[in-house]
């Protein structure tokens, strides 16, 4: 047997241990990037081989928490891909405006930057009062950060530029207060978003959504898991509900592609057919 095949057994065994001990299933994550992240953790833990992680993770929950953070914390910022947000405001907000009340699910929200970006734009469109926004993630530490709505002021210039490019009509600084080197979003925005735990891999349907946003989460899943989650989104969306994926994520290669119409290929915006 080749060494690479043995290494695969090692990873499978590690993932099986995690699934049985902590009920997190990573077996359908895109394997190559999963391996890179495991290697990243090995370096931090000063270990050499994935099998060495198994006893540590089984007997020390803190090591597992670090594993989870290594896997779940993604690079995220306000108004990343401003063209997407502009497209959202121009094409989808007018449709949401026809409902007296509507629900949005932001799945895989990480530390919440995009959820606040969205809430600000809804506020400017006069839609925030009618919106119920659920933002979910499978990492409770990320959710705690998101709930606080406090972020480093370091990136505020970049965020402001993104806000304007996205079609922001006022000043981004209208929506937060400064606290030394941090910004804190206003209560109105924080109260408009319900941050909650949800694991796309094992938790169920989130019902009757008018809009589901799940960006740059699919890239970490293999095709099988993407199909599974896409089906979950299909069942969670209302008829003619919207689905937004990351700019380089597509439903084109999925068996569920016929369930949705493509509204924007470049911004990966889809609409459930019926």
């Amino acid at each position, binding site marked *: 047997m080749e060494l690479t095949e043995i290494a695969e057994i090692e990873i499978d065994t590690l993932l099986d241990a995690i699934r049985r001990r902590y009920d997190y299933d990573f077996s359908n994550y*895109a394997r*190559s990037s999963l*391996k890179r992240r495991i290697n990243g953790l090995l370096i931090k833990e000063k270990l050499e081989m994935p099998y060495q992680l198994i006893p540590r993770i089984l007997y020390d929950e803190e090591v597992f928490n670090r594993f989870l953070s290594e896997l779940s914390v993604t*690079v995220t910022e306000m108004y990343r891909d401003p063209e997407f947000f502009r497209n959202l405001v121009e094409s989808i907000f007018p449709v949401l405006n026809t409902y007296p009340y509507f629900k949005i699910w932001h799945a895989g929200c990480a530390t919440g930057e995009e959820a606040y970006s969205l809430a600000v734009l809804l506020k400017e469109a006069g839609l925030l009062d009618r919106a119920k926004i659920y933002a979910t993630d499978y990492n409770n530490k990320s959710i705690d950060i998101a709930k606080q709505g406090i972020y480093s002021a370091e990136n505020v210039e970049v965020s402001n530029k993104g806000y304007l490019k996205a079609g922001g009509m006022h000043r981004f600084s209208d929506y937060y207060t400064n606290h030394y080197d941090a910004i804190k979003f206003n209560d109105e925005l924080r109260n408009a978003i319900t941050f909650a735990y949800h694991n796309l891999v094992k938790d169920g349907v989130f019902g009757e959504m008018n809009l589901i946003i799940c960006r740059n989460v699919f890239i970490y899943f*293999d*095709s099988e898991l993407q199909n599974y989650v896409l089906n979950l989104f299909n069942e969670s969306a209302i008829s003619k509900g919207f689905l937004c994926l990351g700019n*380089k*994520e*597509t439903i084109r290669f999925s068996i569920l592609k016929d369930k949705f119409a493509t509204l924007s290929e470049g911004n990966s915006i889809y609409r459930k057919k019926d």
Partner: protein
Amino acid sequence: MPNSAIEVKFIAIGVSAGGFEALNTLVTQLPADFSLPIAIVQHRSVDSGGYLAEHLNLHGQIQVKDVFDKEPISPGIVYLAPPDYHLLVERGHYFSLSRDDKVNYSRPSIDVLFESTADIYRQACLAIILTGKNSDGAMGLAKIVDSGGAAIVQDPDSAHARDMPVAAINSVPSASVLSLSQITDYLMTLDKNQN
């Protein structure tokens, strides 16, 4: 020059500063029915959009595209890593993307593509380092060769920027060092020998 009778199923190319001209020379000479898939990491800015693929499609025969996540790998297509995403190869002949941290200050990173290529294709791949001003790809090229794959580096003297080729040669002294036109000729021969 590496043996052109080797069985290659996948070609990975890494290029940085001076890459637009180098790719404009190399890719536009490849025929539309080229028998192998080619994946390219070109370091470029986040907001450069799809210009590179558009340009190469306009001036060459072979189809060039920015990769979408989980895109199947097909022969006769040149796949570009999209700006701000790492490009990886997965078992089962498809790509995946990631927005993990930058590697060698780069996203996409050549090392990331090369490492997953070595992992999946083992001896059945060829990796090429072209012009550039950093050392991304040097470590990945070593992994390609460790797994039995073939390595080519653009001759630093003929490259627009020599740092990246020099770093790659230092990392893999056994790599074949060729000019851009020799690399093009080699790819054509490799293509002919596939059938």
